């Protein structure tokens, strides 16, 4: 049956958002709406209408009740940090356990499932129909294991796993931008020639760069992803932490008290408060700059003192009540903020925790032979809450001096909106299109390599493989007629890539150990959600499943056990 409601979920490290395209009344509707998420606000005040985002913070009140959103973030993360989890997305795909109560162990998938279920419930209530399908966004740099963990979380949250599609966050952001632009006869998107767009997506927990090529044809536009950046630890949270450390320094100077001298509980509270303050201050300053219309080109005027920004009431309140004194923000912007964040703006290519490292990695992957790959870029698109900060835009513009640098239509919501658009493209009336745009099949971008004893890494799945592609390679059975053959799979751009990382460990379990030198085959297939399925078969037999072995030596049975235990925990939980 044709669906009439299309849902996109931005499962963010800091905040989550939901966008929908509702075609119940108008089958051609192309309006994307952001949904509000009812939740408890600070002070445990229930907001019926909610806010258009849900902070990705979960607080376990007791064994049967959990709170997700503002209340968990603003109140309980400070008061009960031991029972509160935030930024869980950074741990997706890892073996990690959170134990708010004895005997209650939550995996990253389980906690993400709590957040997803909260979003699902909110969407179902507002749309007044059950929602089992959705497009969920993931960072472009997520590897296969992290993507599978996200699908597990969706499954646990009550979505139909087969109807959940993952899309890279920068791809979703660019979809929203392009959809808005191509309605116009004069726009930044050309129908005359292909364009290369670099999407710089900096949120609270991730920094992703993707390079997308537009391909106009017969008045339609195709988008093809050329490359994406590697995983990077740098994101908005790191800016907050550095700012918090700076504020702590002022706090300690003004109060003549060292954080280390405080009782642990108080120091933890103080650190949580400072982190919250740093985030608020960052937002307040960026808002203030925007209000003053101090755009990137005005920053030099600001530096010369030609433009000044008055302190807002809230900032003065911070100054007086919390910190004693905060320097004048007009001067603070350059003299302090930029100095505090200086290491992140280091253009030395050897530095990896800078905003330029993911740009360079995506560029060199897309244009490996170009002496200066920046010259191939026609448009840079900024997205993510961090791009509200003018300094980020200014630094990116300085790195691409002759290139147009734009923002997505909604720095906070374009990813969720793009995901909803993608859902329409996949499942709408005219499959594959939204208006005049269509998406080309996306390759998996990183190749998968098999570690061969004494032979290094052998390419198993090429990085150009797209959904539907499959293949196999022959393996020789080693001496000793083993009953079990372990296989280690790695992913990366190239086999000599120093950043190749372990993807998963698998094992072939033989019912009857084969003879030495006998050939067996290892097969693979790229599924629609761009995860990869593996199997093996003997020379003259049909495909058989592989056993998955986690890095700690656990196998797939343990993972299934984990998922079912998480499902059971979720079954007894009230999510508020």
């Amino acid at each position, binding site marked *: 049956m044709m669906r009439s409601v299309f849902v996109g979920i931005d499962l963010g490290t800091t905040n989550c958002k939901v966008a929908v395209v509702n075609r119940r009344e108008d089958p051609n509707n192309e309006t994307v709406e952001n949904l509000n998420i009812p939740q408890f606000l600070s002070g445990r005040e229930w907001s*019926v209408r909610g*806010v258009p985002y849900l902070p990705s913070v979960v607080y376990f009140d007791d064994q049967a009740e959990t709170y997700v959103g503002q209340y968990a973030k603003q109140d309980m993360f400070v008061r009960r940090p031991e029972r509160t989890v935030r930024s869980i997305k950074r741990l997706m795909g890892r073996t990690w356990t959170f134990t708010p109560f004895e005997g209650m162990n939550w995996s990253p998938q389980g906690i993400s499932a709590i957040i997803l279920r909260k979003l699902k419930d909110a969407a179902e209530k507002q749309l007044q129909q059950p929602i089992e399908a959705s497009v969920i966004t993931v960072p472009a740099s997520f590897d296969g294991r992290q993507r599978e963990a996200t699908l597990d979380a969706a499954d646990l949250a009550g979505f139909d796993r087969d109807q959940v599609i993952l899309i890279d966050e920068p791809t979703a952001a660019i979809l929203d931008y392009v959809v808005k632009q191509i*309605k*116009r*006869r*004069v726009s930044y998107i050309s129908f005359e020639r292909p364009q290369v767009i670099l999407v710089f997506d900096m949120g609270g927990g991730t920094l992703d760069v993707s390079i997308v090529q537009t391909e106009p044809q017969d008045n339609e536009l195709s988008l093809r992803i050329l490359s994406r950046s590697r995983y990077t630890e740098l994101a908005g949270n790191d800016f907050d932490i550095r700012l918090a450390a700076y504020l702590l320094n002022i706090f300690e100077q003004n109060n003549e008290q060292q954080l280390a001298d405080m009782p642990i509980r108080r120091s933890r509270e103080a650190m949580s408060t400072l982190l919250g303050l740093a985030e608020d201050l960052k937002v307040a300053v960026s808002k203030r700059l925007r209000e003053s*219309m101090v755009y990137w*080109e005005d920053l030099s005027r600001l530096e010369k003192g030609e433009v000044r920004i008055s302190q807002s*009431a809230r900032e003065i309140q911070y100054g007086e009540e919390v910190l004693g004194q905060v320097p004048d923000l007009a001067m603070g912007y350059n003299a302090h903020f930029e100095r505090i964040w200086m290491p992140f703006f280091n253009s030395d290519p050897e530095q990896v925790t800078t905003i330029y490292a993911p740009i360079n990695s995506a560029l060199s992957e897309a244009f490996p032979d170009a002496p200066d790959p920046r010259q191939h870029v026609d448009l840079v698109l900024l997205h993510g809450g961090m791009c509200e900060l003018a300094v980020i835009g200014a630094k990116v513009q300085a790195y691409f001096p002759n290139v147009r640098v734009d923002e997505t239509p909604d720095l906070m919501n374009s990813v969720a909106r793009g995901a909803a658009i993608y859902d329409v493209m996949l499942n709408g009336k005219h499959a594959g299109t939204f208006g*005049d745009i269509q998406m080309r099949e996306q390759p998996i971008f990183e190749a998968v390599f098999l570690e061969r004893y004494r032979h290094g890494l052998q390419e198993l799945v090429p990085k150009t493989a797209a959904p539907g592609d499959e293949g196999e390679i022959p393996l020789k059975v080693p001496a000793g007629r083993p009953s079990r053959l372990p296989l280690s799979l790695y992913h990366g751009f190239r086999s000599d890539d120093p950043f190749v990382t372990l993807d998963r460990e698998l094992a072939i379990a033989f019912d009857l150990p084969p003879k030495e030198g006998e050939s067996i085959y290892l097969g693979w297939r790229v599924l629609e959600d761009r995860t990869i399925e593996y199997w093996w078969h003997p020379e003259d037999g049909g495909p058989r499943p592989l056993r998955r072995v986690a890095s700690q030596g656990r196998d797939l049975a343990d993972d299934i056990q984990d998922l079912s235990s998480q499902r059971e925990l979720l079954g007894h939980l009230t999510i508020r």
Partner: protein
Amino acid sequence: MGIERYLGFHFTETCIYIAEAYVGRDNHLNWDVVEQANYELEPEWLPLFKDAIPNLYDNNNQVYGFAALPSIWRDFRRNRFLRFNLRFFEKAIKRKMTTEDQVKLAGLFRYCQVFHIRPQRDETLVATVVTERLNSQQRRAVQTLFEQIASDAKLKFVDVIEPEEACLRYLWHEDVRQKLDVENKVILLIHLGYARTLMIPWDHCQSVNQSALAPGMLEIDRGVATYAGRMGMKKTIGMDELLLYAQRARRAFEPGQPSVKVVDAELETPVYLEIIKERVSDIANRLERFLRDSAGRMNPVNEIVLVGEGTAFQPVVEAMQAARVDVPMRTLPQPTYAAARGAASKSWSAKNPDSEVR
């Protein structure tokens, strides 16, 4: 180089509507509605401010629009809030506008840009403003004021126009999609506005006679607010704020609802309908009278087209349809934005005078 964007602002007593005109790939003029970031809005205010920015400035907190709105039902002190309305613009007309007022007005447009329009950094915004109840001389004075406050901004004002011109412009462009055939018909365009209702005859795209006036939605709200005020509400509230609550109740009104709430006064729906009955029928009667009086003085009207925020209020639409007029009637899409869209088209045509795009 950034694209030039063409905007239309429609200022009413309580709301500011913003629309953008652009030439679509269909080679016709299209419109975008500037989305509202009404994050802190309570659910009951959604019907009123889902598509509009509150015309409000909070003198205490120095914030605009949605940021100013939450304070309005917590603090009713005199002079705390400022509206950019007829009273405000009259200061410019009488040359009594202070620098502080100008700064506040400039701040309003900056607020709209930063939080609602969000232009790319190198884009120029070309704007036309629709103001109600001002004559051409007064509009010129207001335009001079806008030009003064925008002297160093990216926002350039091209004109200040009346709702009649804006709505006709919208009708002219929208005709391409609606197939009204305005070039070969006599249309009576009715703008059911907040301050007043305008009945604008348009004979084969030529203006004939003066527009006829009728009470606007404000009159309906005023009747409800006065009645609610007499009901002995627990809260002490000024007429301006009470009118806002009455407007909210009207915008949220659905025929089947059992009662209508205005602040803490709960009016049963039959009572509410009784209060508004006289004013609603007054609008319909004026329509009948207009058509009767114009017979012989102008060509017979072929079609009536409704726009304006009153089209969302079913009792008014029903009364218009029930009026003894033997003329087909239709409502244009997104009628609340008619004037803002028409203003945006004026911005576009001011910069593209030779274009044949419609």
